[in-house]
């Protein structure tokens, strides 16, 4: 250890704070000049942390399920009655669905409909909610036996009910999904049976807003919102949510996906079948394509 004189040591200790202030200003400039640097660093950090998060979130989920079971013991008969009623109702719906499926098949057959190929998907567990104060994203651990996470860049994430977001960063075992509620998220959608086009813009709140809808076809309250192939970034017809007018009389979308309690996400790679102008990387991510994909 180098022995320094007391005044020199004092001067050095007084200098550290200004030096670190300049250093952090430098970091901001570097991050501004090279967007990929912070992306790479955060992806590397995610990769390191994902297994650690998994270790902790596993027991939490187990405990949740455990308390659920114990809690259910007290309301078993009530729940049984409720489930029986629900089951009867669902059986009716099943008949309706079967009739509709048959009708659909008949119509498709008479139209010579070409079925779209089923996309490949991999299922990943949401290990951490890594959103910031002004960002909404989750970290998904991709199982090691599955596909290479790098090929999932730009994949579309759905939970059991609807669209949740898109993969913006991919590491070696984890991917980061930008949720549809993030302020940078812009998704072309089709509203209702007419398929009127609009843009769904995240606002960091729970319900994204609908923008740029045609004044002649205003979105109706309760209408279904599906993704639209406009711009080529998304495949058409994925369920997103339901139109609802908020207090300011602005149409917004109530997402079908349970964005606050995401546990499992299916990541669909549509990227190979998309048209040429898609602003997302296909196989090898280039710099320009990556920055574009970040902004949707």
């Amino acid at each position, binding site marked *: 250890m180098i022995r320094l004189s007391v005044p020199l040591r004092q001067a050095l200790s007084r200098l*550290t*704070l200004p*030096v*670190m*202030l300049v*250093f*952090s*200003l*430098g*970091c*901001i*400039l*570097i*991050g*501004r000049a090279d967007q990929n*640097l*912070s992306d790479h*660093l*955060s992806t590397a*950090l995610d990769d390191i*942390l994902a297994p*650690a*998060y998994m270790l*902790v*979130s596993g027991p*939490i989920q187990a405990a949740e399920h455990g308390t659920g079971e114990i809690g259910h013991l007290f309301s078993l008969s009530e729940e049984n009655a409720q489930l029986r009623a629900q089951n009867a109702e669902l059986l009716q719906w099943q008949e309706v669905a079967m009739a509709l499926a048959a009708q659909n098949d008949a119509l498709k057959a008479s139209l010579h409909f070409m079925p779209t190929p089923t996309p490949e998907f991999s299922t990943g567990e*949401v*290990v*951490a*909610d*890594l*959103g*910031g*104060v*002004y*960002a909404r*994203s989750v970290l998904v651990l991709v199982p090691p036996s599955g596909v290479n996470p790098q090929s999932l860049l730009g994949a579309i994430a759905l939970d059991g009910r609807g669209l949740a977001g898109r993969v913006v960063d991919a590491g070696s075992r984890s991917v980061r999904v930008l949720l549809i509620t993030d*302020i*940078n998220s812009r998704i072309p959608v089709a509203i209702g049976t007419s398929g009127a086009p609009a843009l769904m813009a995240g*606002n*960091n*709140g729970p319900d994204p807003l609908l923008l740029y809808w045609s004044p002649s076809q205003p979105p109706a309250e309760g209408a279904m919102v599906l993704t639209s192939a406009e711009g080529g970034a998304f495949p058409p017809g994925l369920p997103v949510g339901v139109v609802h007018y908020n207090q300011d009389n602005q149409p917004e979308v109530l997402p079908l996906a349970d964005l*606050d*309690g995401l546990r499992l996400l299916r990541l669909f790679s549509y990227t190979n079948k998309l048209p040429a102008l898609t602003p997302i990387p296909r196989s090898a991510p280039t710099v320009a394509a990556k920055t574009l994909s970040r902004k949707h």
Partner: protein
Amino acid sequence: MARGTTLRRHAHRWRQLDAAARWIFPCATLIFGLFIIGMPFGLPGQAALRPVYAMACVYFWSLYRPGSMPAPLVALCGLLLDLLGLSPFGVWALLLLLLQWVTLLLRRKLVPARFLLVWAAFTVLAAAVAALAWAADSALEEIWLPTTPLAFEGLLAAGLYPGLAALFIKAHRGPAAVEQA
């Protein structure tokens, strides 16, 4: 005689290790806390908790034990906060260092002051830093970000500080007290 010296040397080494562990305690709890807050507990406003926790740590330890909160480690924690919270790289490093700087300037007045005053000072500082973070994020992302998280962060800072301070004071007298090593 020789045995006595080796024993003393061993004891000395253990004491050094103890002192180092006590010295690193504040920064270690800060970094560990940042990771813990990212876990999927499903709490509402969990993301806003992370900067508030970091600010409370930096403020408290800069006030009562500035030696244990050196500026390079504060900058490192800030960078970590940026990477975990998806804010522009370097913004929180700068803001945490600014918070530390202001806290060190106010130290002479705040250390002998009553707890209520320390608490009020933290709330004001945290709200100011959160506002700066909002301005910096908005400027760097070239978009007007919503201001509701700002108010939430201010409330969170005011509401959480007494609880956190109670824990920190316990640590300050126990596991973080370098002089007890």
